């Protein structure tokens, strides 16, 4: 599923980033690599999402969030 679909409070694991190299690498540099745990801090259904990754909080635009494929643990 997409990160953008993850409800608030849910913990998921990053599976893949279906994006061009640029975004993929940028996210990787932020620590978003396959296998990383992401906790959905805030998902209002529209607009950006807020996630926890590696003890860091991050905001991802919805478009980007949609490209981040995750699975619930």
């Amino acid at each position: 599923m997409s990160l953008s679909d993850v409800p608030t409070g849910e913990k998921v694991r990053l599976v893949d980033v279906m994006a061009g190299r640029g975004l993929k690498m940028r996210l990787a540099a932020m620590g978003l690599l396959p296998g990383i745990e992401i906790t959905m801090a805030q998902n209002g259904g529209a607009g950006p999402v807020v996630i926890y990754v590696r003890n860091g909080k991050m905001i991802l635009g919805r478009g980007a969030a949609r490209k981040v494929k995750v699975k619930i643990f």
Partner: protein
Amino acid sequence: MGRITEKYFFGTYVRHPELLSFEREDQFMERSEIVIALAGNPNAGKTTLFNQITGARQHVGNYPGVTVEKKEGYTTVNGKTVKIIDLPGTYSLSATSLEEKIARDFIIHEKPDVVVDVVDASNLERNLYLAVQLFELDVPVVIALNMTDVARNRGIRIDVKKLSELLRVPIVPTVGTKGKGVDVLLKTAVERAEKPFSGGIKIPYGNDLEAAIQRISHLLKSRGWILPGYDAYWLAMKFLEGDEDVLKKMKASFSEGFDALEKEVDAEKRHLQELLGDDPAILFADRRYGFISGACAEAVRLSPEARHTISDKIDAVVTNRVLGLPIFLLLMYLVFQLTFTVGAPPMDWIDAGFGWLGEFVSGLWPPGSESALKSLLVDGIIAGVGGVVIFLPNILLLFLAIAVLEDSGYMARAAFIMDRLMHKIGLHGKSFIPLLLGFGCTIPAVMATRTIENERDRLTTILVSPLMSCGARLPIYALIIPAFFAPKWQGPMLWTIYTIGIVMAILLAKLLRAKVFRGETAPFVMELPPYHMPTLKGVLIHMWERGYLFLKKAGTVILGVSVLLWAITSYPKPESFPERIRTQEAAVEEAYKKSVTDIADALRVPNPEKLVEILKEEASPDALGGKGRLFLETVAEIRKITSGFTARTEVLDEDSPAYAEAVKNRNESFETLRKKAPGAFELARQYVESAEADYQKGLAELDNLRAAYAFDYSIAGRIGNLLEPIMRPLGFNKKLATPMIGAIAAKEVFVAQLGIVYAVGEADEESGTLREKLQKEYSPLTAFCIMLFLLISMPCIATFAVVKRETNSWKWPLVQAFGLTGLAYVLTLIVYQVGKLWI
């Protein structure tokens, strides 16, 4: 002085060919000030810090040609003028964005004296990603651990000192908003800038990535495709990452070779993708984060509010203080069980295969012929190399198991669990894998120590590794243990030997670290990768990488050694044998002639010598009369029945019904024969079972005597004689001394050599006869001492060579060789002498 200027899209630079560096054109002057570059994530508080430092003395401009802000400022530290450049905030230095490109270019081309990385302490891991990339650039770095107040409030506790040690970089806690720590930061930065810089910490990418980097790096170096100011290793890495900027620059500078280079790189990338399952750029990022996670695991404590991942949950069990070690021991037990039990059938096949090969080659010569070449091939090479290769399945299985544990990520946990124990003996968890490998073969073990950054730990591990009883010693144990110990003691005895090795290793390591390699144990930094399903391909490749080393050793060193040993045990050959042997030869002949004479009388054969000749098949039976010929035929029949019987019953148990069956058949055959020719039968039987039997025995004994004499005559024998006085206090006689010399070269040859010494044709650890002979001559105590000595004494020559190469000196392998052998000598001496009193 002419200036070589080069235009880049962001400015014009002047080249310093002799320094291989660049300077911005407007700065082409001797610099008298210290330049500090401030890097860091956006929102890490970099700008605040910059403002704190430079106050009003700052200037905002643009980087030439682009709209990115360039901030420069000045301050004074210890009376020196310090220029601060505030680089654009970036999350990484991958040059995907302009800011990143600028930041990176500045660092590479402007060569600031030190880079201060401003790190948000409450978001440590992600912030450290940039730091790691700075380390990769090989520039002096100081980390400003900013926002420590926020971190503390969040329950994040960072052991700054530890983290600093782990990353090998000065870390200064700061609270930029309050101006705390700024002075210390500046002082530290200036200090760093002024001290000569010898390189930062190297990030472990793992063998596969490293190998790819090395190959590309080598390619770049060999063609001279290195951009000025850049480093081949770094360039290679960027190629693999697909760094646009580097690609562009390289293409511009080296257009003619670029396509070929790109192809190479693509091939490497594809290989890595296959092997490790992702784009190399992602893989590098992953490794960097892995390194960071490892360091943070050691230096950062999260209060209970922090969340756990599944890996953490698994780890909670697996690295649990209580469960961790038992789980680990269980896994280790399974690993070794696997190696020994699953490995058994293939071992038998290899054994049979080599046996067949030996017979085949033997068969190429007419039977009974003596040929140096044949001996060399069969006794020397096939026996020697076969003795080694037979253990390949064991070793490969061990390496396979280790590869699975490594690729799945468990090994890092195992190292983590072992780390606590290892600390107690002065090593750390990273030494664990090499030592585990040592149970297969010491050579891959020594090579695996490359992951240990700390020289002292690494050397200690290397020196101690041969005590992990390697696969080569197995044939020795397999030969000796069953010969001297009852079945129920055999397993425990083997286990005892292994344990002694481990205990010795621990003691020795402790001693070395206490006396020789003194100092604090280096902090343990190791990537704690998430658990992941190993790919079959990956595991097999990793298994093979190490197994191959063992095989290569077999093919080269052992082959050479086998040939050499064959030569020194076979030559020089004596021209003639001494008096006592010749006397015995005569006696045996006499006895035989006498008993045949008695028979000749009974048969009324006039000439007993003729009968002797005929029986020895040296003359034709035509001269004999009817009675004589009947006798001969009967003898032939009896021989046939007897040998048939022996062949059938060789493998049978004396109490079994099959055996009784064979006996019955034999007796029936004899009865039939007796009925045919009663008189001749009795005589013939008597001949075969006493006269001929005795003669054969006498001849065999003579063979042994001659072989023993020849052995003493050879080089090996003479060396053995020389060594005997030294070996005797250990309970060894000269027959053992020589194979031990052979064992110095390669442990595996010990058994083959022992066989030669005891003149038992081709000996392997299944040799019933060799075992019997050993049993007769030695006591269990001596047997134990043999194994003990071979366990501890110097490792094989191949290991010696590898240690020399890995430590870059003769000193350590020599120390290891003499040290271990000396230790073996002393220990065996004590055990034997004390044991003698007891037993």
